[in-house]
């Protein structure tokens, strides 16, 4: 059986700022979202597999697979784009 895509979402406001480097803990708005994005990319990247991390105004959304191929991600990205979910589709293409 193929590995299902793992999904997790949680409020950005619940993110524990102490996870960030001290100089980034007080950031707000876009700069904060960028710092959170970088944090998760650094956490997930060494683990291999595929991951899609989307930080929106209020939500952290992570989808990942232990194994997979870029083709899996491209396929899903195309499905998102064809449904009009451009933010997610573009984000997935960046990681594919």
């Amino acid at each position, binding site marked *: 059986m193929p590995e299902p895509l793992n*999904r997790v979402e949680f*409020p950005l406001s619940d993110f*524990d700022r102490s996870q960030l480097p001290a100089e980034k803990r007080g950031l707000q708005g876009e700069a904060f979202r960028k710092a959170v994005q970088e944090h998760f990319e650094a956490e997930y990247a060494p683990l291999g*597999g595929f991951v899609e991390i989307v930080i929106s105004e209020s939500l*952290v959304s992570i989808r990942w697979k232990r194994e997979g191929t870029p083709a899996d991600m491209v396929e899903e990205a195309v499905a998102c784009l064809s449904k009009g979910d451009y933010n997610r589709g573009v984000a997935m293409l960046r990681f594919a």
Partner: protein
Amino acid sequence: MNFGLPNSRRDEAIRRLQIPGTLPSKVQDMLLDGLLLQLRSMSVGFRVDEWLRQSHPELRQLQAESVRQQLQENAKALSPQIRQSMPKQVVNGNTAMNGAYALFWSRVLGEAQQWLPYKALGYENQAGALLKALDMVPDEPGQDCALVDQWALTLGLAGTYEWSPYHA
């Protein structure tokens, strides 16, 4: 474990968990009982999981699949719809226990991805303390109540339940 606490103690437990008094009493009860049920079942469940893993290595693949499904189910409780609509103390207790589950199995399965969301939400200390209790309390059925009590202490739930003798 007896969830049928006297009303005065039950009200105190509900206050401590900051369950709003404006909620219907059935909902208050559901939140309190749900959290206590998780406290009782998940702590002791670790013992069962570990026994199964050690005693029946031929079932490990099946167990891993079952655990991954459970981890995905638990992850749904992190959603804004849940975290922002439930009382904070209830959310924290539930997430700390789910975090301990994720931390334990992420190590066994070699899938740190399962644990990272809980770490990002700040549950590292509590989840670690819950796992430490599993090491500190002897792994014997007669010690199950002590294990639950230790978890309750860690989660600030001590005194929200009472034990009653089991009569077969």
